[in-house]
Structures are given as C-alpha cells and as structure tokens.
C-alpha cells in the first residue's frame, strides 16, 4: 500500500516542473509583452501597461527580500519604504549631471554596502531584545528617512523630488535614445527579477532558510540545534534591506524621477500586503501579490475612471485583505489555492480508492510486543553500523575558544560533572549546591517530586539558564575538559550535547526529514553566497546530509512519515523525531526532558527500547529527567534524586527505591500521622 502512494508522489513530482522553469516562463512572458509593444510601437500593450509591469517587477523585488523577514524569520518591519527611498535617492544624487562620472554598478554596490551597514547597526540594537521590537525601530527609520527626503533640499531636492537626466548605462554610455533606453531597462528588470527569484529560492531551500524557519517555529529548538537567534534574525533583516535598496536603485533608473511622498508608510504597508497575499514564502505568489497591489490599477483598470479617482477603495480593500489573511489564511493566496487543490485531489483519490494518509510504521506491531521489539532492535544494530561512519564526522567539531579546564579535572570515566551547582531566581534557590557525576556511556536519571528543580538543572547544563554558582564540567570527544558555564546556548550542540524538550519542539513548517536536517546545522560549512548559487559543494553537502538523515530515519522507524509535516502525527512519533534529531547531530551526551510524558504504555515500551538501542549502538551517554518511575527504574544505571534543589540520594535504581529519604520526599512521612490525626478528630 505504501509503495503505491510513493509512486504517485514521485510521478506527480516529475510532472511538476522545477520552480526555476516557472520563473523563466514568467520572465519569458514579461519579455514577450515588451517585444510586442516594441513591434506595435506602443499600440498594444500600451506604454502604461508596460510601465505598470515594470513597477510590479520593482516592488516584487522588495517583496522577495521581505519574504525572508516575514516568511522565514517571522518578523515584521515597517521600514521598507525608507530603504527603497534610500536606494532611489542615492542613485539620483550620484547620477546627477553635475556629478563626476561613477560607474553605475559602483553606485549600486555602494548603496547596498551602506544600507547593510546601517541595517547591521539598527538590527543589532533592536533584535537583541525581542523580535517584535524590530517593527518599532524600523518605523523610526522610515520617519527619519522621510524627513531627509523631504527637507534636505541640496541633496534630495526636497518636496520637489529628485531627478536624473539620462538613463544610466544605456543612454549615458551607449548613447541610445531615451525611449530605447527605457525599453532596454525593462529587460534589465526582467533579468534581475528572474535571477533574484532563483537566488532567493536557493537560499530559502538551503540550510539558511531552514534555520530561519526553525527559529520562527521554535526558538528554543533552534538554539538547542546550534542556531544563533541574533545572527539569523540579523541576516534576514539585512537581506530584506539589501533587496529593498536594490529595488530603489532600479526604480530610479527606470523612472528617472521620484517624490518623497512615494516613500511614506503606505509603501511599507503595501509591501507587507504583497508578501502576505502571495503567501510569505512563495516567490511566484509574491509576484502575484505585487501585481495585485501595484499592478491592477495601471494594468487592468486603466479605463475604469471610477477606480482611478477612488484608488482609496482599493487600498481599504487591501487593508481588509491583510487582516483577513493574518487571521484566517496565514499562507496567503497560495495556501488558499493549495487547500483548494488538496480538496480537489482528495476527491479524485477517493474516487480511485487509494488508501488514506499513512502514519509512521508502528515500529512495533500490536501482537507479541516483546518479541517484535527484539527483532526491530536487531535491525537497528545493522543500520547503526552504517550510521556510525557518519557519526564520526559529526562529533569532531567544537567551538573555537572556550575556557578549558585541566584535562585531569575529571576522572576518565566521567563525562559530566555538576559541582556545587546553584541557580537563584530572585530570592528563590531553585538549585542548591548540587553535585553529582554522570559516567561515560551510562543511562543516568534525575528524579524528584514536582518543583524539585529538575528542569532547572537541565536548563543550566544546556545553558538555557546561566547558573548563578558552581561549575559544570564536561569531557569532549577528544578528551578535553570544558567548563560549560562559559559556553553560549547555541554552541552546546557542537560539543556533542543535544537535548530534547518536554513539550516536543518540532518545526511545524518543515517536513520530518527536514527537521532532522536542521539538527546537523552546526556541522555544515558552506557559506551564504555558495548557498545562494547552489554550487556543487552545497549540493554535495545536502546530499550527504540527506543520506545521513534517511539512515537515522530508518533507524528510528520514521520512514513512512519522513516527508510529512509533524502536525497531526501522534505524540509517540514526535518524540521519536526529537530522538532522531539527537542522533543526527552526532550527540555524545543526549539529554532527554521527560521523554515519556504523554505516552501510553505501548509507546513508553517502544521508547524505552529505542533508548536502549541508541545507547548500545552508538555508545552515547544518556541523561534523562523523568517522572515515569517505571521507565526510570527500568532503564537507568544510576539515579540521582533531588528535592528543593538539593541532592537527596544517589545510587542504583533499587537503592533509590528503597531509600526512606526519597520515599519521604515523594509521599511525605507517616510520622506526622499521630499528631495530625489528633487534629482531625478534635
């Protein structure tokens, strides 16, 4: 049954062309329009229509950049207008008749560099706090720019606007006529549009795009997988800034004049609408959005004077559309069409009698659980051998300079040591002078009643909290001893420490396979530029990653669902995805945060087996925090019990179970019984 489903899928895929073809087709269409216009000498399509499409293309470029910010990083900005204006005015200033000759490309690059520097400064300040403050700060940027455009007469021409006398390159260098230059520039716009669509597509599909999506869906998971939130937010912001400035440069080059009023808040809001309408991650959708917002009036409604005079109606409708999309259709028109398409296809499928959505291989069938678990386990051992060759590469990366303790600070059989660890929140001592060792390759459990501080210990080790006292020492793969307190949260993973989350943090907007690819983010080496051009080294790296991921998926029994999104999958599957991520990251120390939470008995058994197998096949150390005593007592080599942040006991499961102090901590004591019963019967 499963095979048929996959075949349908791949057949559909080969029919669906690569999106690049769609981009090229669009470019072709736009070019043909202009060619016909040239042939008919402006009869049809009319010049206003051609100019309309030029405008659509220019603002689509802004939209592509904005989609990084909104669709990938999940941030909203209100500063787009300012940056577009900056590009336009910068170009105008240096192309004025009385300025010395500067090559066009140099001007363009200078504008980009300056704006990136500005974006860095502003972004660094505002993105450090919280993402939502970006909108406030960018609003300010736009105001500042607007005042400049409107008041700085000598440079920007003030309220009269800026003007350049000649079309750059074509007229000034090649001495073509103004009309021909403008037409030539139209083709430049087409080329730039198509190129940028391709580059943006590549970036979106690359690990950079994945990292941003991870950050947007779950900032905790992203950090745990080595993604620096500040870095990627800044990157998204800079990209959107660069695209906006480029569009401004092109705007000025095509139109040769501009007014300050072009760069007010309406432009920023319109760009937002463009991206929302199209679906924030779809490039063709963005183009369509740009057409709807900027193109409909000049292109389609030229002759409808009512709408010309009452453009405000369209704007109000666009505002309403923004609200409706955010409230009901976050995926924009694309989502709308996608769901319509899905509905139609579902009808077809039901007609043909194909089977329904698959779920994960129940890694263990419901009959004869124990026997089946064992056979699955044996299969895993085989897969593990192939996996171990990947694993070697994964673990050998480490952060650059971290303070290293003496190599003999830890006995050779200890991988993690907590030394007088303390965490104080406001006056409250959540963790109080806690000390214990975790030995190499063992399964270690941390237990304690509710509120004992287990999660806090956890977060301290993984640097989600900075401990207020004590040391956390860790022995890396190559034998160095590092003090974790000195590390940043997103560097932890490159030391080989990977954690899971109590409320499973999976990235909803990525498929399960892609969720695993994120886990290897910290190991990748290819730079941003290479990713944009999808060079050979990038493709090789991706291929390697995917092969690795598929093996891990087989190991964890997720093969059937690897291309599905996590939404709607049973909790047991999601837990396995999180575990798979730790394997993918080449973990040496896996920290599990209540892995059995929310699982039924069957799922808990399967999980227990998986944890056993992982430890057996990969020689990793496993540290878990858990409430399910069945799981803990069954699986752990050593357990530390804490209460009120203090250590109660340490030992083997049996020792802990029989420990009176531990029992008291959980259940209270019977001693108080006598006096209390007196009170009760008084």
């Amino acid at each position, binding site marked *: 049954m499963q095979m048929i489903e996959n075949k349908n899928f791949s057949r559909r895929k080969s029919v669906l062309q690569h999106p690049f073809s769609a981009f090229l087709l669009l470019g072709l269409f736009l070019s043909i329009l202009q060619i016909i216009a040239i042939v008919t000498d402006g009869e049809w399509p009319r010049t206003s229509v051609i100019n309309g499409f030029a405008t659509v293309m220019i603002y689509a470029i802004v939209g592509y950049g904005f989609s990084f910010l909104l669709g990938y990083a999940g941030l909203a900005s209100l500063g787009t207008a300012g940056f577009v204006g900056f590009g336009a005015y910068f170009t105008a200033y240096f192309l004025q008749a009385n300025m010395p000759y500067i090559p066009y490309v140099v001007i363009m690059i200078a504008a980009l560099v300056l704006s990136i520097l500005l974006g860095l400064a502003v972004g660094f*300040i505002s993105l450090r706090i919280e993402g939502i403050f970006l909108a406030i700060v960018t609003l*300010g940027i736009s105001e500042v720019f607007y005042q400049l455009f409107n008041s700085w007469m000598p440079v920007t021409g003030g309220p009269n606007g800026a003007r350049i006398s000649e079309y750059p390159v074509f007229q000034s260098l090649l001495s073509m006529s103004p009309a021909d230059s403008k037409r030539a520039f139209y083709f430049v716009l087409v080329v730039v549009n198509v190129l940028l669509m391709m580059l943006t597509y590549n970036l979106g599909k690359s690990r950079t795009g994945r990292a941003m999506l991870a950050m947007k869906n779950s900032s905790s998971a992203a950090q745990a997988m080595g993604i620096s939130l500040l870095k990627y937010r800044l990157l998204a912001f800079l990209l959107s800034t660069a695209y906006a400035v480029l569009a401004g440069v092109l705007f000025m080059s095509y139109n040769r004049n501009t007014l300050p009023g072009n760069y007010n808040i309406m432009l920023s809001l319109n760009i937002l609408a463009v991206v929302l309408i199209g679906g924030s991650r779809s490039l063709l959708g963005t183009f369509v959005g740009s057409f709807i917002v900027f193109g409909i009036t000049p292109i389609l409604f030229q002759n409808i004077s009512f709408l010309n005079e009452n453009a405000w109606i369209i704007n109000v409708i666009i505002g309403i*559309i923004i609200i409706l999309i955010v*409230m009901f259709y976050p995926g924009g028109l694309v989502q709308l069409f996608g769901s319509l398409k899905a509905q139609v296809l579902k009808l077809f499928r039901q007609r043909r009698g194909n089977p329904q959505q698959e779920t994960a291989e129940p890694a263990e069938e419901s009959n004869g659980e124990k026997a089946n678990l064992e056979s699955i386990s044996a299969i895993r051992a085989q897969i593990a051998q192939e996996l171990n060759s990947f694993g070697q590469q994964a673990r050998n990366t480490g952060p650059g300079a971290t303070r290293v303790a003496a190599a003999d600070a830890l006995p050779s059989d200890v991988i993690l040591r907590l030394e007088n660890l303390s965490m104080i929140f406001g006056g409250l001592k959540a963790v109080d002078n806690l000390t214990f060792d975790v030995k190499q390759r063992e399964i270690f459990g941390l237990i304690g009643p509710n509120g004992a501080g287990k999660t806090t210990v956890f977060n301290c080790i993984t640097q989600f909290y900075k401990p207020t006292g004590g040391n956390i020492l860790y022995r890396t793969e190559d034998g160095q001893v590092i003090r974790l307190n000195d590390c940043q949260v997103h560097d932890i993973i490159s030391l080989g420490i990977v954690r899971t989350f109590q409320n499973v943090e999976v990235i909803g907007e990525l498929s399960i396979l892609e969720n695993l690819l994120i886990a290897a983010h910290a190991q990748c080496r290819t730079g941003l530029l290479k990713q944009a051009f999808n060079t050979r080294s990038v493709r090789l790296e991706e291929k390697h990653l995917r092969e690795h991921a598929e093996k891990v998926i087989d190991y964890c029994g997720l093969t059937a669902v690897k291309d599905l999104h996590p939404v709607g999958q049973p909790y047991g599957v999601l837990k396995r995805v999180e575990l798979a991520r730790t394997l993918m990251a080449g973990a040496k120390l896996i920290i599990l945060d209540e892995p059995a939470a929310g699982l039924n008995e069957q799922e808990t058994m399967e999980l227990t087996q998986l944890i056993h197998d992982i430890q057996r096949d990969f020689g990793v150390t496993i540290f878990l925090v858990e409430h399910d005593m069945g799981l803990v007592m069954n699986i752990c080599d050593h357990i530390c019990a804490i209460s009120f942040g203090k250590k109660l006991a340490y030992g083997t499961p049996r020792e802990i179970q029989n420990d009176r102090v531990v029992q008291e901590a959980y259940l209270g004591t019977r001693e108080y019984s006598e006096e209390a019963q007196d009170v009760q019967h008084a």
Partner: protein
Amino acid sequence: MTLQAFLQSLVNALPLMGRYALITMGIVLIFRTTATTNFAQGLIGTFGAFVITWAAMEWTTLPLWADVLLGMAAGFAWGVFVDIALIRSARKITSAGKQMITMGVMMILVNIIPKVFSKIVLNNLPGKSISTKNFEFELFGQFLYIPINGIWAFLVAVVLLGAVFLALKFTKWGLGVRATAANETVAQMLGVNTRLITAFSWGLAGALAAVGGFFTGFGTVLNVTLMGNVQVFAFLACVLGGFSSFPAPILGSVIIPLIYVFAGNPHIMGSQAGIWQNMITFVVVLLLILIFPNGILGKKLVKKV
C-alpha cells in the same frame, strides 16, 4: 548656546511631553493587557482629532470640551472595535500576527480618514478656540514664551494621566487591569472578566490618543499624517522606558522630547536643524536603548523553557 535658548528649548519640550505621554499611555495599556503593539494607535488618535474638529465646526453652540469628549468617544469606539472584532477573534495568533492586524487597520484608517472628513480644515475654531497665541513669561531673567495650547496640552496630559494612574491604583477596574497584566489566566480564575477589562483598556487608549491628536493638530491644517512622527516616538518611549511596568514608558515620553528639542535647536545644530532633527533624536534614543536593552526602568525577564 545662550541661557535663553537653553531654557526656551526646555519650555518647548513641555507640550511635546504632554502629547507623547497621551499616546504612550495608550500603547502601554494595550501592550500590558493584550501583549500587542498597536500600530494603529496614531491613526485612531488622528481620527479622533478629525472628529473633534468636525464637531467643533458643525455644532458651534457646543463648548469645546464637549467636542473633545465626542472625539474621545470616537477613539474609544475604534479601540474597542479593534480589540473585540479583530485581536480577540483571531485565536492562535503570534505576536507578529497581531502586529500585522494593527498594520492592516492602519491601512484602512489612513485611506478612509481623508474621505470621510474631506472638507475639514482646523484653524481657529470659531468662537471656542483655545488661543493660538503665546504666553510670555520671565524665568531667571530670560524672556520665554510658550503657546497657550501647549500649556493646555501639558496640563491636560498631566491631569488625564494622573487620573489614569489613580484609577489603576485605587479603582476596581485598575486592579483588574494590573491583575490581567500580571497574569491573565490567574485573573480569570479569580473571577476577573478579562475580556471586558482589555476591551475597556483598548477603548481608553483610543480616547487618550484622540486627545493627543487634538493637541498635536491644534492650529494646523489637519492632515492624515498628523500623528506619524508622534507615534514613532511614543513607541520608542515605551522601549526606552521599559515595557515591564505602567509608569516606566512615561519616563521615556519625558526624555525623548528633551532630546528632540535640543536636536532641532538651531543654536546647536545650525540652520540645518530641521533636516536632521528626527535622525539625531532617533540615533540618541537607539544608543540609549543599546545601553539599556530592557529599558531604563525595565527588568530582564528570564524566559521559562
């Protein structure tokens, strides 16, 4: 820079403080009760300002304060509408999503205001004007002046905000607002009708914005871009002061006007002052935010993982 120029700048800052504070109060009320940055705040205020002007010109027998109340009512209505109809109806919305809804409202307002009020010009409200004249006085031997409506702006802001803070501290509603701001779920469990509370807070924010709009537009030709500048600095005031309490952003709305007037002072900045005023203010504010990332009076929140 002479002493006179210095003192005059300080005096110039007072009306600004009044106007900014009115908007800032609304922003922080909304943010602390519903975790939304309402970018439509300025335009709601603009709408209110237009309503006041129109009422003043339509109904010349009504006293000015009645017109202002009318404008406040309009602002109140818009605030309640946006909260109930939009923000509340969208269940699973992220903070960025709520921001974008308010941006959609911006788009709508910025286009319908000129249409609805296409013939309004606010100059001297016949017969009921607060004077557009200046009040001249002497301080430390220097002759200074302040527009009379500027005095009104400052005083009205002090009174209104004072009333709001007193209400926050001593009334049942105020307690409900602070409880909701602290922990909405717990407040609900204790019997607080948080929906009513937040709707009222949004409404109050709108009403305050209308007053702010009125003073900002006084003596000018009303334009839909009236509050653009003010809103930006009101938001920055919140970031500068710190979002974690109600009074902290007001500190921001006191500091920023001071920076603003000196950034635009020709004695310091020369004749180009008008061009760079926004930029200088902005840069200084950003630098301050760099030093105080959680606001001057803000507290760093440790996020629970």
